[in-house]
């Protein structure tokens, strides 16, 4: 494999929510195969800045796959071609020399575009605000070992709690549904003994908010599961539907 490759980027450019967008093409040469796609965009942006062209805007922060900031469509796929991998963890060795990489923002009515590849995912927070928590308050907690939890239950709850709120499940769904995001939160809380009581109430509130925020109904295509960088199973949607 070559150590350096050339890439042709085709990127969605849009100044703001109100303005019209279009694709722009850029050729980037001498891209090390050992850097990430976001680092290749950094490299491209440095070139643009020197030419006094506005750099490409994209969301990112931790660059180790856990904060959930990054994410856009890479050749039509949320987070790109690699399974269980966020955009920031996608390395250039996954692309061939002279490859064309098309970058577009998440497309969903509930995620308005801010600029270029950056969208507003505030709607996901609104779903949690509607009821994705226990009503416990600081200083009033009983002893943590009072209610035993089996390791299997704890681990299963943990697995659904690993959702990073990136929005890929919404972007991957043809109905732009947030079913997997909501199901994951309900399953995280509802599997724990502390959460059995409020299960129905949480489900009702969060699902109502899904409609308010403009997310669509579950399309049953399971694309959400396929694109989830944390591999959260779509079975939890069926689990949610039985609450």
């Amino acid at each position, binding site marked *: 494999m070559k150590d350096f490759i050339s890439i042709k980027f085709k990127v969605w450019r849009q*100044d*703001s929510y109100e303005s019209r967008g279009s694709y722009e093409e850029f050729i980037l040469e001498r891209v*090390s*195969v*050992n*850097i990430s796609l976001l680092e290749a965009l*950094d*490299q491209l942006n*440095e070139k*643009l*800045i020197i030419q*006094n062209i*506005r*750099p490409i805007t994209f969301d*990112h*922060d*931790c*660059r*180790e*796959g*856990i*904060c*959930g900031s990054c994410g856009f469509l890479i050749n039509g796929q949320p987070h790109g071609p690699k399974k*269980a*991998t966020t955009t920031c*963890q996608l*390395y250039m060795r996954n692309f061939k020399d002279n490859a064309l990489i098309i970058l577009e923002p998440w497309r969903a009515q509930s995620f308005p575009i801010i600029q270029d590849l950056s969208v*507003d*995912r*505030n709607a996901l*927070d609104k779903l949690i*605000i*509607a*009821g*994705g*928590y*226990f*009503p*416990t*308050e*600081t*200083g*009033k*907690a*009983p*002893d*943590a*070992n009072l209610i*035993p*939890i*089996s*390791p299997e239950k*704890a*681990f299963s709850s*943990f697995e659904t*709690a690993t959702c990073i709120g990136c929005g890929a499940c919404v972007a991957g769904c043809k109905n732009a549904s947030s079913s997997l995001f909501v199901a994951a939160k309900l399953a*995280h*809380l509802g599997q*724990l003994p*502390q959460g059995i009581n409020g299960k129905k109430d949480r489900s009702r509130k969060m699902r109502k908010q899904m409609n308010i925020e403009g997310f669509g109904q579950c399309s049953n295509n399971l694309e959400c599961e396929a694109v989830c960088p944390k591999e959260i199973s779509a079975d939890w949607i069926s689990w949610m539907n039985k609450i």
Partner: protein
Amino acid sequence: MNNCINPNLPSGDVEGGWQKTIKNLTNIPSESKNKFQIIIVGCGLSGSSAAATLAEEGFKIKLITYHDSPRRAHSVSAQGGINAARSPEEERNKVVIDQLFKDTVIGGDFRAREASCQRLSEISSSIINQCVSQGVPFAREYDGTLATRRFGGAVVSRTFYARGQTGQQLLYGAYQALLRQVKLGNIELITKRDVLDLVIVNNVARGVITRNLVNGNLETHKANCVVLATGGYSNVYYLSTNSLKSNATAIWRAHKRGANFANPSFTQIHPTCIPPAGSYQSKLTLMSESLRNDGRIWLPKKINSQDDPENIPEHERDYFLERQYPKYGNLVPRDVASRRAKEICEKGFGIGFGGKGVYLDLKDSINKNGLKVIKAKYGNLLEMYERIVGEDPTKVPMKIYPAPHYTMGGLWVDYNLMSNIGGLFVLGEANYSVHGANRLGANALLQCLCDGYFISPKTITSWLANNKEIDNKKVDEACKEALNSVDKKIKVLLKIKGDKPVDYFHRTLGEIMISKCGISRNRKDLEFALEEVEKLNKNFKSNLKIPETNSGLNVELEKALRLEDFIELSKLMIKDAIEREESCGAHFREEYQTEEGEAKRNDDFFSHIAVWEFNSDNNSHIRYSEELNFKKIGLNTRNYK
């Protein structure tokens, strides 16, 4: 000035000091609490937990963050776990509390206040109760009780964890408590804002100036008091394990408005990170230290070796940690492991890009325990490594190198977590409190949650109860002045119109800082670094290029504002490292070491916290010191040989 460095410690015994302090704090009747507006900057573990708790009590909160959602704060990246002193038998409680206290003080190499470390240890158990009741899915034993594991620098098993994502799970617990209060109307969530200045009236914090990152507008926010929970400043080094946007701007602006900075040079370097792979590298990823339990660290005996590691025979490998530390081997403390790796790489034995890497080899452990056992233990870590490096670490030795990871230094606070500016509270990594010169593994998450859930809500309430009067006219004047000064600062940067992007200068700053004020330091290099940073500063101010934009959204401007503060902070870090003529914890001065090459403290002259005051009249710094006294634990030296 001296009364400004009064740490307000509880009198009498270290044990029970916090309970005694609480008794003397003033409360506010619940129904009057909503008359007080509190601004909290930062939404990580300490900021979110403080916001949720203060809102539950009835205060009006504005939570300000540059993230789009509080769930993204850098606390989310913490892998390992959280320490807590818990014992099923009540009579053993004191013993385990003493153990955690002792490990924290000794880990910090006697450069933190005993009383604060004691409080951390005493509160720790209630943190676990709190988190479990929020639904944090900690790992469990077969009988359903909470599981623990051992962590570096500890002989006991007291670290609670949720696989390798403990920080994420604790943050989501606090985030959910926070959003519940948003729903109840007690918290206003203000996202996508950078805090660029503080509003201070008569030495009391009364507000902040923010820049809206989407439309570029400058805004003022007034309050009865301000809490900074903005994290650490490892990004001074450009390449670090921190998230890319982590920055020092809020604490640095506070410092320039009069808040003292404590021990800025105390920074922790993590020995096991994935080394840089090319010139556009943007961050370094941490690989859990636990790998050192099963990995043997080595380098080729041949200088500048380009051979594939699989082809290097056993007798041509130098297992340098095992050779130098026969007793602890690959498990020597973080700073020792980092220093030895740096030294040997600088002699030309390093491997990988720029010769900055050493091998961590799992082969022997795989042969002994089987591939299955190793995969079960480190599964997700090994996958992460393979994604980033493109090599299977069970077949090819891993490449690792030390990277800046955590900053113990921060704004000086007293026992009540208040800076020397009235009503300016500082929490979590942003303050200097319990970690001394080196933070104990799994104590970072603990400190954040102690500060946010249990300490600051009480001390903030008490301060507000005793400081109700606000001079609104003066506050408005101060807001105007601060807003104008931010506006001016931005215009100056935009006017430079040079030819180099921000990252060019940031990378250069990082190179100076990591080579001269990083893993090990000496006077000559530090003095040279100070000149280099000064040169860089001039270059930055005359050659920076920020491209023109049509809207207020301007990422390059955001970065430039952060870098300007990092450059100034770097100079103070270097000065602090020069003045501290001893080695302690993570601060290693080559001039002060034992014959075995170990850190040599100088307790006669440096058993104190260095407290730096900014003098705006002549743009200079004055160094004061706060003496440390050890009543419960005797000063002694660690020995890992």
